[in-house]
């Protein structure tokens, strides 16, 4: 019921705001330093990611793809997020995220639907902006043997440099999330240190 309410609210907000808006496009490529921790131990890796987004007035839709190797296993992740800027400094976000750990023993798939809030502030006039956000999983599923006691949450902080009258932008960010199933005492914590270069077109 709660999920349906979230979805209905989001749909209503979208429907009311998409009329007569110009679309701003953005795309970028990232180098991501990933550090994963689980019961089995700790692994790190450097990966590449790509992202693209479209903004309609106060709404932004963003897709991101990440792939790379974490020593003994590979990581593949896809995300699709919708963001709504409630004010000039506060935004709400919902996201569907699918993550796969590919190993010789098999592939673990983690699927999360999350909602969160993000605050943003100009640091050096509007050229450099800082942001911090927290999210919580509404739905979490994984093929780890049991679906009892799911929990997921995460956060991200970063800064974006956007030069005036230039289409290029640069972003430095740190993100961490933890997903767990208490029923099988299984958890995955992932840290990302991201450097992104992107272009945008209005």
């Amino acid at each position, binding site marked *: 019921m709660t999920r349906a309410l979230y979805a209905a609210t989001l749909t209503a907000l979208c429907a009311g705001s998409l009329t007569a808006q110009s679309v701003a496009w953005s795309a970028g490529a990232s180098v991501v*330093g990933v550090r994963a921790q689980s019961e089995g131990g700790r692994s790190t890796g450097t990966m590449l990611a790509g992202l693209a987004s479209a903004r309609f007035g106060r709404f932004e839709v963003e897709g991101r793809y990440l792939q790379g190797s974490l020593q003994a296993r590979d990581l593949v992740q896809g995300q699709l997020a919708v963001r709504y800027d409630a004010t000039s400094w506060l935004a709400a976000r919902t996201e569907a995220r699918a993550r796969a750990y590919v190993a010789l023993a098999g592939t673990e798939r983690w699927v999360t639907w999350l909602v969160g809030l993000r605050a943003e502030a100009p*640091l050096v006039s509007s050229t450099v902006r800082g942001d911090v956000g927290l999210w919580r999983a509404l739905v979490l599923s994984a093929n780890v043997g049991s679906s009892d006691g799911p929990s997921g949450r995460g*956060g991200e902080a970063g800064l974006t440099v956007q030069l005036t009258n230039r289409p290029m932008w640069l972003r430095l960010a740190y993100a961490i999330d933890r997903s767990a199933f208490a029923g099988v005492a299984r958890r995955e914590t992932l*840290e990302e240190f991201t450097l992104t270069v992107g272009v945008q077109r209005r």
Partner: protein
Amino acid sequence: MSIRRLTWALIVAGLLPLSGAAAQDASALIARAVSAYEGLELDAAAGLLRRALARPLGDSLSGPERTRALAYLGAIEVLREHRDSAAAAFRQLVLVDPRYRADTYVFPPEVTRLFDEVRLRTRVVTIRMPDDTTVPAQQGWLTVWLFPSAPHDVTVAIARDDGRPLRTLYAGPLGDILIVGWDCRDSTGGCAPRGRLWLPAASGAGSGGGGATERLAQVPLDFDVAVDTLAHPAALKLEQSLPERATRRTKVRSLASGLLIGAAAVTLPQIVAPGEHPSGTRLVVGSTLAVSGVIGFLMKPASRPLPDTAAANRERRDDWQRRTNAVIAENAKRLQRTSFRVRTAGRTVVIEQGERGR
């Protein structure tokens, strides 16, 4: 069935055929009167016609029947040498149907002569227009036909429900027939207001214009506008704009934001995943954020213009202007497709001078 219900049923059953029977009675009376007239039984014919025209029978008469009854009644009164009564009947006839002309094959010359005298003195028009019509806003017209009882000056207009004039459509002489068009706009070129309007045709006493109004024939209209325009984008609020000049407040805000967000980056692992051993990369991001805040605090003297925030604000204003212009252009297109609906909301009412008090 109770006594009360039975009583009501009988009353309703008795009333239902009354109007039809009354119409038949009135028509039969007129037919008998015409026969009596042709047999020169003038007194009997006059009595029958007066009964047919009087209430309640007279209310059931159709327009042509009433016209016929009044014509014969006037003719009978002429033949009975009751000239005043004949003139009154003919005058009533002209008001009912200004286009009526006495048939010289049916009535003798003294009758048609008196009718023409009365018709020329009784200046009034009849108004004909579609009962329900849709008028395109672009180059569309509501067409109204006016037929006078005799040549005279008329003023045709559109008026509000309270009588205030909205637009004069025609003012001048009217001979045989006049066709006027109304584009559903007021005298300033704007759309007429929705709701009840009137189409009055004032008949003047003079023939050269400028005479006092003798009689007013008017038709009630229901006027509606079918238009569906988009709302303009909400006006930009001042608090949504970024500061365009550095102030002490903006400097402090930069510093506080940098330090706070930097601290949040460093403490994220404790919030999200307590118990884990976080990497040192969060310190890189956190310190960069904090340093940016310090730079933001130090690099801008107070009151210095901030060209990049001014540019961001200008871009936001330009975007708002673009969206507003798009809405204006779309509304202009939609207004071209707008149409007006005009319906007659009742019969023509004729008001004599001095009676006008609506």
